């Protein structure tokens, strides 16, 4: 009889079995890769370091996007809006009062005078994004397919319009300048590792297995007792938290915020990264960021012009080539390898499994 046996396996030792350790291999490899990139880049010049730092911020965003979209299979165009929330909340809490007085004259008094610790500001940014996701997600988590795509795009547009016109708090269409720029390759790299760990722990949870079941077949998942809306909402809120943190790093990396930085262009860039890498695995999310970031960097250099060694000629690509190549790559992946480079599998010591 299999029904009444006792629940003997203790929760605490589940990672310490050979089987449990084997499950940790993908996480281990991904963390080592990011740490290696961080260490290698720290030896390079400041310009290259900034490029890699920016790549880490993209990595945090795409991992946040993966947590919801990859596991639920539901389209999400709103995630960059949660980056914006994180970025602006942290900015407002950490900017110096004198700077706020210059750019934002209509802030409420308590906020105008306040200046919090960067860590407090960052966490507040992440939690604010998560809170807004909870409210917004409640009605739209019932949707899937095209309905979800349209609804989340509408959410992005609402965020964009509100932030762009709430001049007293965000500076509106003008840039908001003077954010403390505390982001380095070290804290951005560690945050990227943190996002990967968070996404991995979530993906091993019961909630995520239920969510992935609903991605495969929503009707059968409900028959297996899965509370589809609730599991989707959990992932949506967690993903928004990670994207909110990415927004925090983005703002304090550039030191300047513009609402245009949180609209369609980055939305499609990050979605391209996730789709090219493989939407259904954390490895895919990480790999997609690495591949697309490297490619855009190379194409950017090519658009500036590269002097060929030996001969007296320069290789120069026409402007706009980068965007065309990215779009073509997205198209190629969707047509010929719809599950992305990783095919939805996680990396292990024996390759992709």
């Amino acid at each position, binding site marked *: *009889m*299999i*029904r009444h*046996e006792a*629940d*003997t*396996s*203790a*929760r605490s030792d*589940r990672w310490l079995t050979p089987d449990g350790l084997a499950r940790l291999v993908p996480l281990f490899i991904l963390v080592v890769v990011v740490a290696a990139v961080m260490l290698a880049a720290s030896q390079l010049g400041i310009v290259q370091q900034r490029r890699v730092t920016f790549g880490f911020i993209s990595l945090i965003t795409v991992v946040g996007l993966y947590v919801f979209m990859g596991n639920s299979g539901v389209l999400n165009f709103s995630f960059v809006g949660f980056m914006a929330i994180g970025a602006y909340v942290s900015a407002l809490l950490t900017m110096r009062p004198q700077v706020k007085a210059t750019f934002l004259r209509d802030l409420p008094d308590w906020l105008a005078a306040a200046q919090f610790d960067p860590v407090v500001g960052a966490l507040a940014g992440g939690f604010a994004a998560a809170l807004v996701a909870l409210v917004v997600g409640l009605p739209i988590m019932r949707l899937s397919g095209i309905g979800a795509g349209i609804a989340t795009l509408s959410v992005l547009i609402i965020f964009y319009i509100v932030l762009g016109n709430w001049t007293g708090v965000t500076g509106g269409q003008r840039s908001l300048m003077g954010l403390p720029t505390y982001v380095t390759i070290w804290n951005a790299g560690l945050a990227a590792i943190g996002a990967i760990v968070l996404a991995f722990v979530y993906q*091993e*949870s*019961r909630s995520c*297995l*239920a969510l*992935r*079941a609903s*991605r*495969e*077949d929503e*009707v*059968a*998942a*409900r*028959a*297996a*007792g*899965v*509370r*589809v809306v609730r599991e989707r909402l959990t992932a949506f809120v967690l993903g928004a938290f990670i994207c909110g943190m990415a927004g925090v790093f983005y703002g304090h990396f550039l030191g300047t915020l513009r609402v245009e930085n949180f609209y369609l262009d980055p939305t499609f860039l990050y979605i391209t990264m996730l789709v090219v890498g493989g939407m*259904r695995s954390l490895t895919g999310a990480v790999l997609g960021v690495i591949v697309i970031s490297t490619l855009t960097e190379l194409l950017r250099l090519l658009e500036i012009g590269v002097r060929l060694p030996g001969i007296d000629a320069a290789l120069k690509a026409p402007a706009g080539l980068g965007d065309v190549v990215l779009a073509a790559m997205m198209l190629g992946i969707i047509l010929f390898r719809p599950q992305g480079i990783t095919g*939805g599998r996680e990396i292990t010591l024996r390759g992709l499994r």
Partner: protein
Amino acid sequence: MELEASGVTVRFGGIRAVEDVSLRLAEGEIVGLIGPNGAGKTTLVNVLSGFQRPRTGQIRVGGENARGWSAHAFARRGVVRTFQAVRLFSGLTVAENVETALLSTGVGRAAARTRARDILGYLHLAERADMGASALSYGDERRVGIARALAMEPKFLLLDEPAAGLNIGEAEELGKTIAGIRDDFGCGTLVIEHNMALVTNLCERLHVLATGRTLAEGTPAEVMSNPAFKDAYLGAAA
């Protein structure tokens, strides 16, 4: 404990899919739900499992009115169904298919892994546990569908054409499995089936639907000798 439908009516547009049907299923019994195509069998199972709200009539689970329950609520209270099209989670492994159901009954993550293997072993699927569900043969697919339902610890198991597409030998084997499940788990089982030999051997009672209405009910012998049943179901040949 009983699963009980009383006076259930479902309409799609102007069409009456199910009209004033009442049916009871007690724990430990096997009831066959039969009838020609389009008789409303699957619609009735959808109503009994919360996937279709009836226009009128009510469902009671162990005496409790199920009005307003969603499908996952039925499943969590032990009213578990399978699908004619099986509907496995094809991107997950066989074991994960079963674990998903176990986890929603409140079993821990590690315990679910062990127990999923026990359930798969019970259905002779142990060596399939780590395969992707999309790689299974048709017969194995159907058994994994049943394994996933068993993982919910059903009090009432609703099987929608479990033998569809199986050959005679496989269908007989499946009949033994279903009878075995009833003996081992004590659940009440409702089987939609076209294979009359299987149904008459397996079921204590039959419930016959035709064009959405109850045509006959009783033991297989009673139903077989019912003139209305002979007329409508077996046709002029009977």
